[in-house]
């Protein structure tokens, strides 16, 4: 069994953060922090040094794509997985262009899906 991966959840909806933590925090992932905005997410990433960031595309301050680009510049070792209520197809090439590891539609979110995207 591999070590639990340190996970940061960035999403402005507390209800989603709560259910994501419920779903993901377990044997595979350890939710080390949550953030409600893009800038708070970058701050948290600097502080808690996560291995994985589950990053909502639509944040109140900056777009998830921009947060991802910033994180990639400063912490290239972090794997960013974007998530949204929308499908990946609604974002065209943006997901691939921002350096994210992958994309998970929120309705399909589960530990298994996240692992598949990260290691797939």
């Amino acid at each position, binding site marked *: 069994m591999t070590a639990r991966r340190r996970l940061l959840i960035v999403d402005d909806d507390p209800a989603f953060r709560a*259910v*994501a933590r419920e779903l993901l925090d377990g044997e595979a992932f350890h939710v080390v922090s949550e953030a409600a905005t893009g800038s708070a997410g970058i701050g948290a990433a600097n502080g808690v040094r996560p291995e994985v960031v589950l990053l909502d595309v639509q944040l109140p301050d900056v777009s998830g794509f921009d947060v991802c680009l910033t994180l990639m510049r400063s912490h290239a070792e972090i794997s960013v997985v974007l998530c949204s*209520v929308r499908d990946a197809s609604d*974002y065209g090439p*943006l997901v691939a262009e921002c350096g994210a590891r992958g994309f998970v539609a929120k309705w399909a979110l*589960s530990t298994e899906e996240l692992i598949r995207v990260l290691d797939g």
Partner: protein
Amino acid sequence: MWGLALFGVVFGVATTTIAANDPNADPFRVTVHAISGSLYLVSGMLAHYRRPANRIGLLMLAVGISFLSEDLQFSPTAWIHTLGQLTASTSSAFLAHLALAFPTGRLETRPRRALIITGYAGVVTMGFSTALFSDQAAHFRGNAPGLLLIVDLPYFNHAVQTAGRFLAAFIAAAIVIILIRRWWRANAVLRSLLTPVIVVMPATGVITAVGLALRDIVPTHDAFVRAYDVLFAALPLMPLIWMLHYFVGRGTVNRLARRLNEPLRTAEMQDLLARTLRDDSLRIAFWSEAGLVDIHGVPLAMGSGRPPRTITVIGRSGNRQAVLVHDPLLSEDPHVLESVTAATGLALTNQDLSAQVAAQLAEVQASRARIVEAADAERRRIERNLHDGAQQRLVTALLWANAARRRLGQGEPAIQEQLTRIAAQLEAALTDIRELARGLHPAILTEAGLAAAVKEVVGRLPPEVRVRTEIGPLPKLATNIESAAYFVVSEAVTNALKHAHAVHVEVAVACADGVLSVSVRDDGRGGANASGGSGLQGLLDRVATVGGTLTLNSPEQGGTTIKAVLPVDHT
């Protein structure tokens, strides 16, 4: 006036008969005299008909009648003969009056009035001198004795007549000088009216002056008198020619009316009127809160009244459209001025209606654009609300159901079963809402722009359809332009697949020279048209709304090309 004219005609016949019956009569002189008098009568009537308010017609009639009355002297009847003696020289005074009053009918300065009054006084004096102190019966065979004769004073009368002729010569010379000065100082309008007069009046004036002065110095002056008679007869032809010129002027007015029918700007209309009426200072003016303003909206300075200006209202009372500010002389021909203002009024009405229609059309187009824009904005808002609200909550609910199933593990199969059902329903609801949202507004257009959205549309085509997509570099586009372009591609690709059953589709999007061109070509069935309920009419409307054009080429033998050209700077 018309009574006087009728009298003049009857009078002319009578006097000519009297003159013709005179045993001393020179047939040439009688004929020229009759023609000359008649010409004045006819000219007077025409002038009066053309310009009823102007005294010129009356003066011409007076010249004609007084001229004809000279022949009364040849009557063997005493009282008629006496009348002839009294009026013998009056035609000269009326003629002088006519020359100075032309073309307004008024004597405009005090010296001119004084000159003419002197002339009338002179001819009356000359008439009475002959009647009172010359025994014509004794001097001329067949003449009746004058009723007013007191005593025959041939030398006295001769002196009076000679003095009168010198006075007449002086007045004639003064008139020549006044006319030349007036012509020299006149503006274009007045000059065009004065020119015919200026040519003949001074010539006659000189001949009158020289002729009268030399009458007794040159003993045989028959040829001279004849030349004078012919020229005098020709005089009324000048105003006649002048009036004919105005009849030609009617042709000009007709041409003007035709030109005014063409679409003209107000400035062009003003130039045309100024040229036609030969008044460079003519202006079209409109009412505003600041008073009369010219065609550029600048308040019109009516100023000191020099040069004098007259205002003629265009349009009927209660519907005053504009005014013509012009030389007062133009009012001298009310027929021409009325025709011109009527034609101008019509042209201005047409111009006004065209402008109103254009403004209404522009307003309709703008409101259509606003309606489409508002509808689009509303669809985007609803899509965004669905995304942020219902979709988000359903997703969270679904994930909680999944989380609960995960916690249950292998236990509680019945609850597991129920949770699975809840999750399935939630997923179905989410799918429905996603479809609904996509139909409202394509999120990819907002999120990733036109190029990504077009690729996404093309990417949805089944693998058996061969697609070639060319998308050039695109600038940041206005939302409505992006939407229009997207819907053209989306609709055309959907039609190619669903209706035309195409197997090969080419999509091209390019932006150059301020226009965005979008084209979709397929090898399907063809024969598509906008009335077929294929959604093409909606596309046509949407593209037109943003100021673009949509062309459809879909021959029956197959293949369809839809091309939209959209302005990039349209907002």
